[in-house]
């Protein structure tokens, strides 16, 4: 008998790639046990295909279900999940789609499908209790620039050269016209979601850079510097106050100073 690891390697190839030749001699069950492995292979493919299609409904609307299904089927064969939580599967699918031939005319496909995936995440998020701006009173002016804030988990920042938020809005409104002409127009978008509700906002370049940096764990001083570099009118005091007043801050850490 082969080692368990070798048996599992051969079974993995049968399930994911359909290569049953190496495992067939090991099996028993009915007249054609390797044929019965088709039950496992079918389950693997169908369940993951359904997971991807369920995770990219707006993308399916945009590019057509048959094309997306074919892409998803290839993705499932080439990129098995890496963790036993299928809700997380498909994080790499937008980049996979962008590299796939057949929809070169849809220049915004990657950013649109990325937002599609993120909307699924945001729709099941839960807001944590928001901190009041008064917590900053306990921070000395010298250390304020090193403070790291945690933003609400149901927050997503996207920058695109096409108005993908308008396109997603059409999909979500259920009132999409047969044909849409999209003009190139750079957008910076904040999406917030919790308990099934989604809210889209476009924000100015300085605020976008600041909020994106803060959401990535950048200390306040460095985040403000990045914002000021792209928007000379950026006002860090106003931007910081807005983060708190909009309930975006769920935690604050002064001990991570300089760590990011």
């Amino acid at each position: 008998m082969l080692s368990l690891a070798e048996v599992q390697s051969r079974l993995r190839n049968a399930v994911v790639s359909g290569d049953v030749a190496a495992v067939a001699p090991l099996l028993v069950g009915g007249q054609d046990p390797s044929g019965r492995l088709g039950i496992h292979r079918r389950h693997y493919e169908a369940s993951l295909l359904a997971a991807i299609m369920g995770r990219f409904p707006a993308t399916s609307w945009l590019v057509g279900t048959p094309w997306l299904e074919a892409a998803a089927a290839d993705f499932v064969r080439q990129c098995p999940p890496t963790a036993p939580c299928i809700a997380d599967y498909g994080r790499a699918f937008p980049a996979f789609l962008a590299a796939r031939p057949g929809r070169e005319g849809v220049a915004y496909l990657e950013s649109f499908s990325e937002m599609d995936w993120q909307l699924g995440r945001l729709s099941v998020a839960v807001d944590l209790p928001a901190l009041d701006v008064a917590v900053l009173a306990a921070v000395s002016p010298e250390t304020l620039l090193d403070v790291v804030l945690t933003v609400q988990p149901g927050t997503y920042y996207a920058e695109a050269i096409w108005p993908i938020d308008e396109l997603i809005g059409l999909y979500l409104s259920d009132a999409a016209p047969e044909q849409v002409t999209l003009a190139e127009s750079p957008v910076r978008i904040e999406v917030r979601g919790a308990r099934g509700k989604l809210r889209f906002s476009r924000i100015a370049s300085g605020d976008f850079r600041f909020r994106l940096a803060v959401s990535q764990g950048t200390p306040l001083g460095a985040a403000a510097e990045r914002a000021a570099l792209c928007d000379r009118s950026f006002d860090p005091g106003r931007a910081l106050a807005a983060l708190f007043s909009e309930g975006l801050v769920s935690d604050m850490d002064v001990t991570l100073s300089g760590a990011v």
Partner: protein
Amino acid sequence: MSPIPRNPTQTGVGLRLPHIEEAVATHPPAGWFEVHPENFVSNPHALELLQDLSARYPISIHSVGLSVGSASGIDRTHLARVRAMVDRIDPILVSGHLAWSTHQGEYLNDLLPLPYTVETLAVVVRHLHEVQDGLGQPFLLENPSCYVGFAGSTMTEVQFLNELVDQSGCRLLCDVSNVHLSAHNMDYDPQAYLNGLPADAVGELHLGGFTLEEDAGTPGRVVLVDTHDTTVAPAAWDLYAHAVTKFGPKPTLIEWDNEIPGLATLLHEAAMADAVIARVLAAEVTRAVTG
């Protein structure tokens, strides 16, 4: 509100995401609910709703992703996530499958079969200890639904399960429908299978629907496929009555994972299980009285 029973006598149903808001809103008359933690670990809203339900219903956590049979080891990150959910929900039972689904960092999203050998036994025993230590409580292991076996197996599945119970201290979740299905597919006697299990270790029973399809390479013969997309078959109900006779009434669950119907259908199936238990117990009383 009365305390949550730790050993529910009324049959429960598998709670899937399409039903969770309805369950929170209407408090259906289910004995208990069983959930797959893999559906909740990346869904904070659903977990919040489940926590609400856990104040009113016994909850069981049934993992489909712990993969105790993987030669490449247990996913400790996932085990920690399940533990966090256990701490939050305080389940009455925690269970999983005698199967494998992870292989060198890939998750294959299925419950794949194991050869029953001394090497596999050592691997699964080691992982069961790791899981039980990680979760801080006994783990119930479910017998698989089988379409194939391995020519190199040196033990029957029943012998393998007995060894696992002895060597790991785990308990058993006996999926009666799986026993019926596997016995059909692999040509053995399902009642003899149940009779061979260590009755004291059985802590939960499962029932679910399966479908029939033509067996590859064997014209005219069908293979039973564990689809969980229909009602429990009459033959599985008969085997369930035998299981209740053999093991006594245990917390029983109706599973339905695909083509999920309304909650009323699941509760109807649960009521049928309750009726089987009542019938078996009544027959035992009659037998005792009449000698």
